[in-house]
């Protein structure tokens, strides 16, 4: 019983995250500004991380946690590099 | 010796991190973790010349509680605005707030709190006049927001870091 509940709840959560990822992808595709795209990419990372976390819960394996951890730690690197590029014209300044 | 003492807080933080990561309290991990944490903490100041001084751990805990509650509330508010869409009738806008806190770590933590709370984004800081600019999704009560930032966040942060 509890397994069924959790299965469906996990499935629902993953579906929501996936839909969220889809929304972000639409924003990423449509833009219009470059900042919007960066933001959307950041959101995609968060959604992906959440998908992994819930998958880890569903499968009861801690192995997915590491990936999520890395996304949490370094997911921002790509988007902040992009943001800095937009802001300053180069990622690493003298 | 002073360097060693100065780097102890970071070392402790790193050791805790190591133990949590490895999910273990075994002697092996303690020793390995301590060695790694201490080494890193000793090396860290090279690239991190500004040191944080921490005090008042209780204030920090209370602040964390406030922040958590605020995040939950803002989530509700922002969710409502999004779901109602244009009908929500809210007016987004920028807000300038005069700050007193000067410590970089305090400022950074304030930035974390503000960014991590839905509905407010750090939009700039003028270090000379010490004025913080925020972008707020719902600018219906600017004074209230200013008060929250100054009283609920800034003051405890000043206690902790200065």
């Amino acid at each position, binding site marked *: 019983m509890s397994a069924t509940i959790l299965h469906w709840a996990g499935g629902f959560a993953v579906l929501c995250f996936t839909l969220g990822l889809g929304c972000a*992808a639409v924003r990423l595709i449509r833009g219009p500004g470059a900042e919007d795209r960066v933001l*959307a990419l950041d959101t995609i990372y968060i959604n992906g991380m959440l998908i992994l976390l819930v998958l880890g819960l569903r499968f009861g394996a801690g192995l997915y946690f590491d*990936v999520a*951890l890395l996304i949490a730690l370094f997911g921002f690197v*790509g988007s902040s590099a992009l943001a800095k590029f937009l802001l300053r014209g*180069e990622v690493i300044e*003298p | 010796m002073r360097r060693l003492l100065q780097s102890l807080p*970071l070392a402790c933080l790193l050791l805790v991190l190591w133990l949590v990561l490895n999910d273990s309290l075994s002697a092996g991990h303690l020793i390995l973790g301590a060695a790694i944490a201490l080494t890193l903490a000793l090396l860290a100041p090279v690239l991190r010349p500004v040191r944080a001084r921490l005090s008042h751990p209780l204030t920090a805990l209370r602040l964390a509680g406030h922040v958590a509650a605020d995040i939950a509330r803002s989530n509700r508010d922002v969710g409502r605005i999004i779901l109602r869409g244009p009908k929500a009738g809210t007016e987004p806008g920028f807000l300038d707030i005069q700050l007193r806190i000067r410590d970089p770590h305090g400022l950074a933590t304030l930035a974390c709190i503000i960014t991590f709370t839905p509905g407010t984004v750090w939009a700039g800081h003028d270090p000379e006049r010490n004025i913080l600019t925020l972008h707020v999704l719902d600018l219906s009560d600017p004074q209230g927001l200013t008060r929250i930032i100054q009283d609920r966040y800034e003051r405890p942060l000043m206690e902790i870091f200065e």
Partner: protein
Amino acid sequence: MLLILILAIPFIGSLCASLLPATARRAGAWLAGGSALACLILTLLLTPEVAASGVIKLSLPWIPTLGVDLTLRMDGYAWLFSVIVSAMGALIALYAHYYLSARDPVPRFFTFLLSFMGAMLGVVLAGNLIQLLVFWELTSLSSFMLIGYWHHRMDARRGARMALLVTGTGGFCLLASMLIIGHIVGSYDLDAVLAAATAIRGHRWYPILLVLLALGALTKSAQFPFHFWLPNAMAAPTPVSAYLHSATMVKAGVFLLARFWPIFSGTDWWTWIIGGAGLCSLLLGAYAATFQRDMKGVLAYSTISHLGLITLLLGMNSRLALVAAIFHIINHATFKASLFMAAGIVDHESGTRDLTRLSGLRTLMPLTATLAMVSAAAMAGVPLLNGFISKEMFFAETVFITGHWASRWGLPIAAVVAGALSVAYSLRFILQVFFGPQATDLPRTPHDPPRMMLIPCAVLVLFCLSVGILPGLILDPVLNMVMRALLGDRTPVYDLQVWHGLNLPLLMSLVAMAAGIGLYLALRERDRRAPGQVPLIYRLDGRQSFEALLEAIDAGSAALLARLQTQRLQPQVLLLVLSTGAVALLPLLPGGWWPDHPTGTPAQWSFGLMWLAGGACAVVAAYQAKYHRAASLMLAGAAGLVTCVTFAWLSAPDLALTQLTVEVVTTVLILLGLRWLPPRIEEFPGPTPMTTRWRRLRDFLVALAAGATMTVLSYVMMTRLPAHDSISAYFVQQAWPLGGGANVVNVILVDFRAFDTFGEITVLGVVALSVYALLRRFRPPAETIAAPLHHRGSGDTPAPFEEPDLHAPLPEGTMRVPAVLIRLLLPVSTLISLYFLLRGHNLPGGGFIGGLIMATGIILQYMAGGILWVEARPLIRPQAWIALGLMVAGAAAMAVWWVGKPLLAAHAVDLILPLVGTVHLSSVLLFDLGVYMLVVGATVLMIIALAHQSLRFYRKLAEAAGASSTES
């Protein structure tokens, strides 16, 4: 043994000559003459043996598996040629010593002359067809070098190249024919081949074989239609012309035809090809010789004609004609060489070879004139000289020919015409040079040369005379020996005599003589009007056609090549994709591979939905890549993240980790690169041209097809049952017991297949080094250098570059708050990188992931603090990390040698420490540590090298600005 010496002496001599200093004239001549004389003496020493046993043979193994040996074989025929080659060689060496100027680099001349002599001896002594071919081509090569001896002269270069091309091509044809002979006979041994005559003649490949052989022989002997190279080869120094282009090398072709006469002759093919070429050369050569203006030109064309005569005789399928041919080979060698020598002397003394300028030299150089007259008379076929006898024999053969009426009537008439022409050009040669009024406007005043220079000529003239008077006595034994060598028991009865009585051939001789004199007189007037112009065939200039042909080949091949290849990348990629698709789909065409009962896992909607988004991102990334680079990069990054999640979803956490870290680093890297790409401005506001649209449609379809192929292939593969005995089962079973790790992927990476990993990190290191090396020479587009300064400045004026404050605890401006956080992240990320490194063997992680995490942490510091600020603090030297990483990994791999295990074997040591217990240390961990270090080093090196470019060019800008401000 003597045979080897005969062959070796010239080559050794050649080598010695090449080592002589450029001024060693006398030594060179002595070397050449001595070598030739030695060869001659050795050959003569062998005479009794050859006469007695018929054949001397000596074989050394070379490439036994291919049936090619170094076989020296001397029979009577080879003996004759050896004598000619070596005797002429000795005479030429003497002559050349006087002929060449003191300033000529004489040793070079004798080097090639001697190597030619060796090659020619090699040809005649070859007992193996392939060996024969080797020496055959060597004669062409040394001829090339000798013609080009005066290579500063245009005509020498041209003549040399033409001769090489024609004879070299012929050589290739000859090679083909030799191969076919070898194939038919099963051996390249000359004796075996000679014994297999009927098999060869009867083989279905005989015609093609004959054509190839003829091409080889006729090009070498300058026979029609390949004769044109010989007159052009006259740019060579005269000793070369006398030796190679009259007496020896051009004889190689007829030598070969006669050598193979017993095998090939007797068929209509033979008659038509060989006889036809001979006849044409005979007439054409004689005709052209009559009108030449250059003394050596006359001789060259007459050589073509006389070689045509020999070829014609060989082509007549008559054994007596063969005798005549051999006889004429000897005679022609003597009188033509002496004529060349005489011409050379005239040229040498008077400074010109122009028949129209030369006149009346008889009184100035009487000895030379006498010798030339006798030789020319021999050439014309005047009785009591050797040329007369061979001409008589030729006439006799033409008279007695059987067969078609055209040949029965045509050949004798042609023979007489050729005879008449030869009389005419001989007369003209002599009369124009030595008779008439004495020339006054010659470059030099001629007189007889030193006696020694005349001796070679005189010796040859003497020989002409003696053979002409006493042919039987002198040449009968020789000829007999030769004919026995060629025909064995089938040697015909012949009679070498001056006087055969009054018969038809004699009558023909007289007619030819009279006609020749008449012709000379008739042509005198025309000669004065248009000297050097050959009437009727003036336009058919072999040289010009040849060069036109070469130019056409050049132009044609360039045009064809332009159609067959492209220098552009896109068509190449298209071709690549298309050909891959074609060959990949070909085996699948019959069908039957689509899964009937696909196995697999049930689909999850979320997964599909996720890929809907990921796929859309990929497609749009492709669409946006032209004008919106950053957008495209982000879209591709999104697809990458979806890939990463997919890996995790489908049970590959290691892959997900790696994909993620690589993704992050790649994004930063490309962004660093984007900084140097100026923005693309949208072009062509108007409608897209039709060709562009068509090209896009085509590319779209190709891309679609490629994707479809990948889809189908992967679907089919995924829904098949896996191979039942896959090696991965072993890895899963043994990872823990033997590999000592629970994470099978990592155990594979660092233990089972550690060598791949070693290679992979090497690739990374190599790339880092290449990137670094390339960036040191980097030159960016000018408009990009200051672009970020524009970003920073207010409005349209760029901010000037300012050196950052290296002692500031925090950066000013926007990066102030982020810097606090990012710097706190470095120890954290280092800790996490170590965490992933150390646990990799049992859980997802490992050196690579750890290294990338560490590298990302470092890169973040650069992003926050700027290059100079970070580098003002003691940090890593990436290159050293790369080297150390490789060394640590290599040491870990090799350390086990110490305990006697093979490379990369795992070796574990368990340390028992107080408090801690047992610590398991494995060489595998060390290996992973090496990977970690290398990855950190390589990644940081690449990123930082790229980032450094900005600094470099800002400083240049600042310097330039500073300089201009101080000036003003």
